[in-house]
């Protein structure tokens, strides 16, 4: 088996102040370059899991290892810095700062990640290269993010996640705002670029039709125990 980029062991997370709201996950491992789909209906703890992986939520128990770093041992600000350096993040929609230019949006994570920034030799040409690779107009960098279509915005979000070659991209239902044709095109572009860079992709979705495009599919209900509401 290839080297793991992400390794979760015996993770238990409970929302502070809400004892009945918890997530328990025994084991999850993702290899370098792997494309993993986490399937689950809403309310199965997908977003909570992504927050734990990204380090914005700290689990009460267990270990979260990303690129050989145990992030649960890091301080809050070190986890923020680590996220900036090692992760690309794509949301469902409204990924971009609407008032900023496309280029500023793509370059935003580099602002918080000096090492990742150093990997990008020439920011301007890298933005242009990524935009071209993702089928965006050449001079889109100067456009205001709010002037883009939803599909274009999602592709800009991919460019932002890819810039500076982070080892892992996590995506939270990035295709749910797109129609079926666009979904396919979107995944094509994402996977092609991720493969070129050797970046792993962990995507959560409720849409089983996306399954065949991935290396591996896991069902949230099977790997994690998620409790919510009064109990």
């Amino acid at each position: 088996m290839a080297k793991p980029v992400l390794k979760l062991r015996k993770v238990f997370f409970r929302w502070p102040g809400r004892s009945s709201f918890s997530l328990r996950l025994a084991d999850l491992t993702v290899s370098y370059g792997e494309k993993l789909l986490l399937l689950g209906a809403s309310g199965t703890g997908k977003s909570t899991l992504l927050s734990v992986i990204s380090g914005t939520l700290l689990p009460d128990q267990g270990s979260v290892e990303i690129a050989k770093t145990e992030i649960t041992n890091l301080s809050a600000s070190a986890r923020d810095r680590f996220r900036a350096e090692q992760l690309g993040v794509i949301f469902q929609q409204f990924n971009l700062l609407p008032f900023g230019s496309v280029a500023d949006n793509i370059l935003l994570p580099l602002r918080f990640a000096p090492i990742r920034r150093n990997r990008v030799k020439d920011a301007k040409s890298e933005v242009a290269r990524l935009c071209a690779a993702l089928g965006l107009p050449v001079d889109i960098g100067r456009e205001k993010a709010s002037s883009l279509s939803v599909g274009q915005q999602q592709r800009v979000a991919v460019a932002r996640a890819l810039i500076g070659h982070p080892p892992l991209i996590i995506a939270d239902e990035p295709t749910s705002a797109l129609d079926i044709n666009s979904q396919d095109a979107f995944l094509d572009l994402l996977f092609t670029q991720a493969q070129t860079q050797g970046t792993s992709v962990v995507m959560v979705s409720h849409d089983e039709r996306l399954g065949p495009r991935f290396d591996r599919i896991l069902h949230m209900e099977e790997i994690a125990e998620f409790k919510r509401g009064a109990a």
Partner: protein
Amino acid sequence: MILRLAIASLFARALTVGMTVLAIALSVSLFLGVEKIRTGAKSSFADTISGTDLIVGARSGSVQLLLYSVFRIGNATNNVTWKSYQDIAARPEIEWIVPISLGDSHRQFRVMGTNRAFFEHYKYRQGRVLALAEGAFMADLFDTVIGADVAVTLGYKVDAPIIVAHGLASFSTHKDQPFRVSGVLEKTGTPVDRTVIVSMEAIEAIHVDWQGGAQVVGQSTPLEQLREMQLTPSAVTAALIGVKSPLQSFALQRAINEYPEEPLLAIFPGVALQELWGIVGLAETALLAVSVLVVLTALIGMMATIFSSLNERRREIAIFRAMGARPLFICGMLVFEAVVMASLGAVLGVIMLYAALSGAQSSIDSNFGIWLPIEAPNLRELAVLFLVVCAGAIVSLIPALRAYKLSVADGMIVRT
């Protein structure tokens, strides 16, 4: 880039940000305006009389003497006899002396008897002398020069007839001796504007037929006869004095205060003005307090704006967090925004103040007699502006800390 994004974020909320900036600007210009009027009023007040070294009157209080001799408020407790006046006038320290005789009135305005030297020596606003807007100084016994407010209020022009009333708010008039307006003074912003000025001799002349506050029944000396009479005043109400050397004014003051023949009082007008301002100046403190509250209100308004923007900006904050921004960065971004808004407000407020000042300066001067100089902000005003920006930053800490907490708790899962 972050700076560019922060500015762009402000621009994206241009309307609310603009309103907030405008509110701060208005409050800042109000505050600085009150400051300007306060200092302007104070210096205009202190400039009511200048160039006079001493004021002499019957013994009372220094503020009272100042009030009736300069501001024509209240009455003299007693007069100064003509003999005492001449004794003082004969002293070697005296450069000039101007007698003032009060007691009669015309409508709501006081009538003041004096001589031509008054127009030469009475100075205001750092040495300005009284000037005629129209007409000429008194030439005839029954000529009068009136202040600008008198002319405007009563609609008098040169040659208008004036009947002087005996005493204040009195029904008995000196109707046998009508006066003629010979000149109207320019607006000065001093009590001279509300004064009817006649000669000392005229004051004597209109009282020739009077005894004990009433006209002797059936007695009315013809005008021709009055003009030929030796009209030496028997008393004056007060006198303005200029000394040859400022060093002598203390000695002269002591000499007058210890004058053996009659209880007299000599005061330094500047000192008495300060004393008087200490009393009326209470209002300025209240005014200042109110304008401080207005600035605080505007800043709290800004805090409310930032607070209410937090909800619509949870998505923006979540994006920053997902990209690796620390909660402290979010906090700092909000404080930075507040500082930008407060600074813009302060600068705009100063601009608005100067625009208003340059527009209203001359009309404030002519209507209220307050001269508001347009000059670069002084150190005190700059300190006030700096404090406004600092206060803006401090006030914004409250919503910023709230954003900090939210961004820690939310993580990245904001789906709004």
